[in-house]
């Protein structure tokens, strides 16, 4: 779960990390009032979108008065901002965060991230923060310094003193940076985070370190032990993300919308990725990524297949299932049967390849539930058929089948 800046800052503040005063608002008028309430002479108005390089793409504005803050907020709210790291089509701005601007004598960078290969978290730091850090690190690997973390009861330890030395800090600044690293490590473990990034961190004239931006991702698999973060997720679900993808999530299905016209249903993420590759190689364009989890029931699968049927862009549907121990083919066939019965008016060619556990029985289930489809014995044959069907104007074989069924 990726959090918005305002949510991340609220959580990090609980661990003693300094943040500027700020408020999240949904309208220009509220933005102006928020700025008036904050006081101060200069404000930052920031689009709440979850992506890297927000500032580079116009998502961060400065204002010299509360009125100007309102104007900037009005220009951001409702707009879509696309960065190279946002999903296709960009991210729509629903909220802006109005903050007092902080004058920085120097800006630092710090992050905690879980490193897959070594299997432990690492603290990353630099004495020069900002969005261009990645390019600088590309030229000079020493621009980023790292310290591996060891999990201990209630937190994580690392050589933070050595880290501040390596990024060239000394004296009081080094001591406060060491304190900040400690707080970030504690937050990382306590929140079951997979990423915390504070960039930039302002070093003020009076020697304080203030996190000007914050990125925080939480491990979805650990939400069972965080009631408060679960509530946060439910809030995000209700208020913002793609409702179709969320409905799928609730039904044990991973669904991501894509731009093409071939609906795809697969069990297992690896097979789903391989199937998308085959569709593209055969000259087709997938309409979605869909991976049925092993825990999905036939009713969950019916919902998932319904999402594909309800997508008006879909011109053909490819089902590629290899039943394993945890998810047998017949459960998926049953789900498809239910979905097709619920949407009898939707006429779209369905190509199905079934293999593995209960494949034979699943074919009987499809026949008994009257799902009009073309059966293929290998995934590649099914892919080619689905691609050809999506290109065809009228799927004649299907029209006749549907006529018979009706």
């Amino acid at each position, binding site marked *: 779960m*990726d959090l918005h800046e305002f949510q991340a800052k609220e959580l990090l503040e609980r661990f003693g990390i300094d943040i500027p005063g700020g408020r999240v608002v949904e309208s220009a008028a509220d933005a102006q009032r928020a700025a008036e309430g904050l006081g101060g002479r200069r404000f930052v108005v920031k689009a709440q979108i*979850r*992506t*890297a390089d927000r500032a580079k793409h116009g998502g961060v504005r400065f204002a010299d008065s509360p009125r100007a803050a309102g104007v900037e907020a009005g220009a951001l709210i409702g707009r879509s901002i696309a960065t190279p*790291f*946002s*999903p*296709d089509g960009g991210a729509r701005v629903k909220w802006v965060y109005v903050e007092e601007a902080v004058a920085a004598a120097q800006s630092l960078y710090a*992050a905690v*991230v*879980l*490193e*897959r*290969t*070594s*299997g*432990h*978290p*690492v603290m*990353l730091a630099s004495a020069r923060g900002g969005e261009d*850090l*990645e390019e600088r690190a590309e030229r000079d690997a020493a621009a980023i310094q790292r310290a591996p973390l*060891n*999990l201990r009861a209630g937190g994580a330890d690392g050589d933070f003193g050595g880290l501040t030395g390596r990024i060239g800090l000394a004296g009081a600044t080094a001591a406060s940076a060491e304190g900040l690293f400690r707080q970030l490590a504690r937050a990382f*473990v306590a929140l*079951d985070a997979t*990423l915390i*990034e504070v960039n930039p961190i302002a070093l003020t004239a009076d020697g304080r370190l203030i996190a000007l931006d914050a990125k925080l991702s939480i*491990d979805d698999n*650990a939400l*069972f*032990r965080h009631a408060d973060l679960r509530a946060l997720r439910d809030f995000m679900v209700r208020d913002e993300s793609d409702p179709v993808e969320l409905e799928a999530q609730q039904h044990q299905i991973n669904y991501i919308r*894509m731009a093409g016209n071939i609906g795809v249903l697969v069990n*297992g*993420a*690896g*097979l789903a*990725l*391989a199937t*998308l*590759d085959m*569709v*593209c*190689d055969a000259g087709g364009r*997938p309409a979605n*990524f869909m991976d049925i*989890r*092993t*825990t999905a029931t036939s009713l969950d699968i019916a919902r998932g297949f319904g999402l594909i049927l309800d997508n008006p862009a879909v011109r053909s549907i490819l089902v590629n299932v*290899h039943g*394993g*121990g*945890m998810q047998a083919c017949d459960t998926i066939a049953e789900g498809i049967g239910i979905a097709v019965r619920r949407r009898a008016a939707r006429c779209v060619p369905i190509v199905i390849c079934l*293999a*593995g*556990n209960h494949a034979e029985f699943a074919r009987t289930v499809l026949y008994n539930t009257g799902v009009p489809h073309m059966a293929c014995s*290998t*995934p*590649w044959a099914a*892919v080619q058929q689905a691609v050809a069907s999506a290109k065809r104007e009228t799927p004649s074989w299907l029209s006749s089948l549907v006529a018979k069924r009706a």
Partner: protein
Amino acid sequence: MAILIGRETRVICQGLTGRAATFHVSRMLSYGTRIVGGVTPGKGGSWHLDLPVFDTVAEAVAATRANASLVFVPPDRAAGAMIEAIQAGVGLVVCVTERVPLLDMVRVRQALNGSRTCLVGPNSQGVLAPGVAQLGVMATASARRGGIGIASRSASLTSEIVAQVTRAGLGQSTTVGVGGDPVHGLTLAQCVELFEADSQTEGIILIGEIGGSDEEDAAETIARLRLKKPVVALVAGRHAPRLRRMGHAGAFTSERAGSADRKIGALRAAGVLIAPNAHNVGLLMREALTPAPQGA
């Protein structure tokens, strides 16, 4: 000989009395796997599926001389179960549990350091030596005993490739699911080393996907060992939908590797044959194993 498991493997199942474990252990028993007991805290002394149940792994190992454990414990307790098996000195631990919290896996990796345990998973379909033993939840119908070693990060795609390899007239020595989670035990690179040393294995298939650097590490191992056996690799996810990226931290770690192109490039440079697509893996391996005509 297969890798990791064989006829001499004596297996206990942690979480044996649960519903999923009951179903799958029955299948494994009928496949011929030597399952010798189970562990469910609080149910020690009882019997389940005609197998003795113990309260702890240490008790089960002492009583049954088990040398492998299959972990079938829900995600909130899976890490504890893995650590218990590691501390009891079990040689092979296979965890099929999905959705284990990442920081729990960091603790499991810390427990693995300096231990004598080989951990497979979590989120693994398990290890299968066709015709010999099954330690996991994979489909077995299309697997045949033979000379191809398969190591994979994905379960259902592996079943598909196994079926294809069998259709191509080849069998499998062992199929190993290293698991799809970011932090896991056994790696693709370690599988390559095991397969290279295994006398039954004649060719190796690696099934990778985008994310992480398991494939790049395997490529490095293949180049370093100057592998004699042919390796065919499939990397899934060339056309995956673009996902959101938060911040820059990922670019400063091994996450930087991870695109399909980088993985394919690294494997190809190590002399691995890249399957252009998921449907031609089996045939590519058969061609690789067919000796070139004399004088060609």
